[in-house]
């Protein structure tokens, strides 16, 4: 229906067309969406590459990462996922490429202690020579 220059119900055709299309929203927990390849999610640490220069600790905007020296000469990274803002500046600052960002973004936890992640060459991960 026309009202002067404007039309009442301009979106009627578009809306009716959409009624018969597949809805674009998905039921999230059941169906998941894949993040693109270069997405900056949870960090992973390659202890064998780390030389303990603490550059990542210095450059982290929310000091969420700590590098500790283990008795056997290796290094261990402790990342606080609560503080981390996933900017991956540490990945760029690290001269030895010991840190890497993954696509994993579902990191919610009920218990705040689980957010402190210790990444080291634990017994189950054999330290590659």
């Amino acid at each position, binding site marked *: 229906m026309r009202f002067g220059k404007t039309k009442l119900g301009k979106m009627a055709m578009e809306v009716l067309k959409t009624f018969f299309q597949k809805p674009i929203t998905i039921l999230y927990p059941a169906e998941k969406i894949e993040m693109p390849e270069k997405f900056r999610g949870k960090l992973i640490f390659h202890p064998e590459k780390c030389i303990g220069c603490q550059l990542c600790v210095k450059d982290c905007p929310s000091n969420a990462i700590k590098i500790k020296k283990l008795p056997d000469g290796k290094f261990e990274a402790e990342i606080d996922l609560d503080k981390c*803002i996933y900017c991956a500046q540490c990945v760029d600052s690290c001269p030895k490429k010991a840190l890497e960002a993954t696509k994993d973004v579902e990191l919610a936890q009920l218990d705040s202690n689980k957010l402190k992640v210790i990444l080291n060459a634990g017994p189950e991960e054999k330290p590659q020579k």
Partner: protein
Amino acid sequence: MAEEKEFRIPIGPQHPALKEPVSFTLALRGEKIMGVDVRLGYNHRGIEKACEERTYIQDVYLVERICGICSHAHSTCFVQAVEEIAGLEVPKRALYIRTLIGELERVHSHLLWLGVAAHEIGFDTLLMFTWRDREVVMDVLALLTGNRVNYGINTIGGVRRDIDKEEIKEILKAMDILEDRTKYYIEVATQETTVVQRLSGVGILSCEDALRLGAVGPTARASSVARDIRRDDPYAAYGEMKFDVITDDHNDVYGRAVVRLKELLESFKMIRQSMANLPEGPIAVKAPRKIPAGEAVSRYEAPRGEDMHYVKANGTDKPERVKVRAPTLANVQAVRHMLRDRYLADMPIVVAAIDPCFSCTDRLISVNDMDKNRTDTLEWQDLRDYSIEWYKKRGVDFSKMRKLK
């Protein structure tokens, strides 16, 4: 006419119309707004003080989180000032990538605004459609920069990620989809009767008032003030871009909607230009950790208006002073003027029309107990304990859920 008692109604700081806390106290007579008094500062987090205690590299990420929707604006503005002080020669390819991400962010911000404005006037269908199409540009941004909102593509001396062939194809494909969707939304916004009726004649800001009150960005351009930092004070790669500044003479919310939608078309044009002549070469240059003493002012055309950063360096690796002037601060003055003798129903759309961008705040509520008749304030923790007790009395025990920090 007898002096009617003015009816003071507080809007905010928590109110469905305001996406972020700001408090307007409206003096109402019936449905007419007689006076407005604005209370800001709910989101003051001392960013400027925090910048002085962090190194330049950390500041880039701190400054980026001033505002969720125009994060690239703030980080580019800050990085340009620091590069000017340090005298760094940023490679051309980095400037083009910064311009591309800046225009993609303008597309994503304007589409978001159109949805919020439609919601304010009760037209949720347009909100659902615009935000569905906005996902196209969000996915492109996630593909290019690794994050949907805080892109973190800027670093001092250039950008952190390069763009390869298929990504350029992805961008151009997304631009075609978005262009014909935007053309459809321009039709809807200018022809749908109820939208036109709800938007036109609302929030009048004449050209002189826009200049006097210092309005910036689309709000000023809708009152035919042809000011655009990308043309007047070109930065990044805008010097080599051919685009025209959209102005409108409706002086009202309808004009602002038309200006923002037409600016989208300009952005698509610019993105295609930047992709066509993307120069080869490195994407960043090595930046010194300690920036020599000096000061610089850098300006950026954020989606909401002119954003200005002043950085003063004192030779150490921490800035001496960082001053940020977000575009919304300039437009808030105009809101007080625009709301006078309008209807209460227009308040949400007028406030939404300047596309305010404050940010979040901490949680604290004040509860007055009926029987003990004293007011105590409940911190987030006590609120949590109270709700666990309340449900425990009704047989549902949540206390086993470990306490969040």
